[in-house]
């Protein structure tokens, strides 16, 4: 029952049939992950740029910690966010547990160190290149960071895509804080986990195939956007 051809056709028929539930799951997956990545970028990129620009005591340690946090286990992050958002936790009054917002928070925590670490790496090289220019222009540190981010934006999109890849593929955190509630917090990865639990391996794999296709589409879109932007910039 699980030969690749039949799974492929099952995935195709799922997509073509226009199954309302499948589409709402896909939309929620994208909404949660893209928002988390956006938040991750808003925090992670300036953080990475600051670490690439400033020299301060303990900087090496900070970078080491940041790099280590790229490997934060999703299930641990999920558990920590669960304990924070639980009715018995410090943020329980907000009533956010088992909502997409809780899932966004968990994924943002997961991807921010990854985006920050990769941003720092890509901007550090750029910083070496631009350092003399910055000095001659006598830029303020905050302007330096902004200029660096703007100049390094194409490289930074790779950092954002890495964050996207980590978040869209992750199941450990969202299943704990979201609860995999049908029509409310069920996303692609938790749906795949559920179908695996039911022993419907063909359907689980077909959903997996759709998820991978979506990830490829998002990556391709960002790449082509980059290319167009570059062409316009240098035309």
């Amino acid at each position, binding site marked *: 029952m699980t030969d690749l051809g039949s799974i492929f056709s099952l995935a195709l028929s799922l997509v073509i049939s226009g199954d309302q539930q499948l589409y709402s799951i896909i939309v929620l997956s994208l909404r949660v992950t*893209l928002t988390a990545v956006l938040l991750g970028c808003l925090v992670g990129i300036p953080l990475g740029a600051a670490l690439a620009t400033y020299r301060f005591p303990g900087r090496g340690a900070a970078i080491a910690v940041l790099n280590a946090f790229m490997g934060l286990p999703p299930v641990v992050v999920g558990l920590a966010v669960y304990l924070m958002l639980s009715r*018995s936790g410090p943020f329980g*009054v907000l009533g956010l547990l088992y*909502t997409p917002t809780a899932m*966004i928070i968990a994924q943002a925590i997961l991807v921010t160190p990854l985006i920050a670490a990769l941003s720092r790496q890509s901007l550090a090289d750029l910083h070496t290149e631009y350092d003399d220019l910055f000095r001659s222009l006598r830029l303020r540190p905050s302007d330096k960071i902004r200029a660096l981010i703007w100049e390094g934006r194409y490289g930074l999109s790779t950092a954002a895509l890495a964050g996207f890849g980590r978040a869209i593929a992750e199941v450990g955190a969202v299943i704990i804080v979201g609860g995999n509630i049908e029509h409310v917090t069920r996303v692609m990865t938790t749906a795949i986990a*559920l179908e695996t639990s*039911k022993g419907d391996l063909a359907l689980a794999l077909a959903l997996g195939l759709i998820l991978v296709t979506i990830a490829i589409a998002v990556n391709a879109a960002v790449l082509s956007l980059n290319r167009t932007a570059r062409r316009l910039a240098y035309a």
Partner: protein
Amino acid sequence: MIQFRKALAIAAVIALSALSTPVEANDKYIVVQSTTSTEQSGLFKHILPMFKAKTGIDVRIVAVGTGQALKNGERGDGDVVLVHAKAAEEKFVADGFGVKRTEVMYNDFVLVGPESDPAKVAGSKDIVAALKSIAEAKAPFASRGDDSGTHKAELDHWKPTGIDVKSASGEWYRSTGSGMGPTLNTAAGMSAYALTDRATWLSFKNRGPLKIVVEGDKRLFNQYGIMLVNPAKHPTVKATEGQAFIDWITGVEGQNAIRSFQIGGEQLFFPNAPGV
């Protein structure tokens, strides 16, 4: 630099609006902490639309093991708990976390095992004797190992055999530490025996070499109970809506809804609420 600021502002606006988008237009909902067997068998999908049609209340199911469902209830992360481990449920109520336990329905556990049946237990109606034979044959046995209702029931059946499964863990006794479905996937993969509730088994699709080997023992009875999370402990509990659900599922309509749920012509759960 203006472009940069613009981009930043747009990104911030998008992120905030996505975060604050109302998750649900309908806020008349309750969260029910329940078990994987009830959710994955499709029972809730069958009965909840009827409840919603009558009351307008959306029921959101968080399907986990009984142990975790009760823990989540203790923390106030749910309005109602519907699980299957009587002793643990009674303790939940006695400790003040739940208001009152009402029985809802039952079905039974079955022992599944590979067709080759290395422990020669097929056809037996004695679960304890069957487990003993499995241990003596050192035939692989996949356990939930996750403090779920099924896991608790399994341990209860090992007790009279006098066999210490903990010491055999990692050898013929495999504690998977996961849900019923994943445990059945594992059992199918390693041709192991496993104890499962009948509902999950009937709706399970990846059976591989597994089939039912022991059923019909009175001790394999599997009772489900429902409790409102105590609003005195957790004021956020939606007591009115939660109680409405409990009254419905233990009332005539809910009990009939449970009775009408079938897979392949077979009834999966048998309603037995008191006084119906």
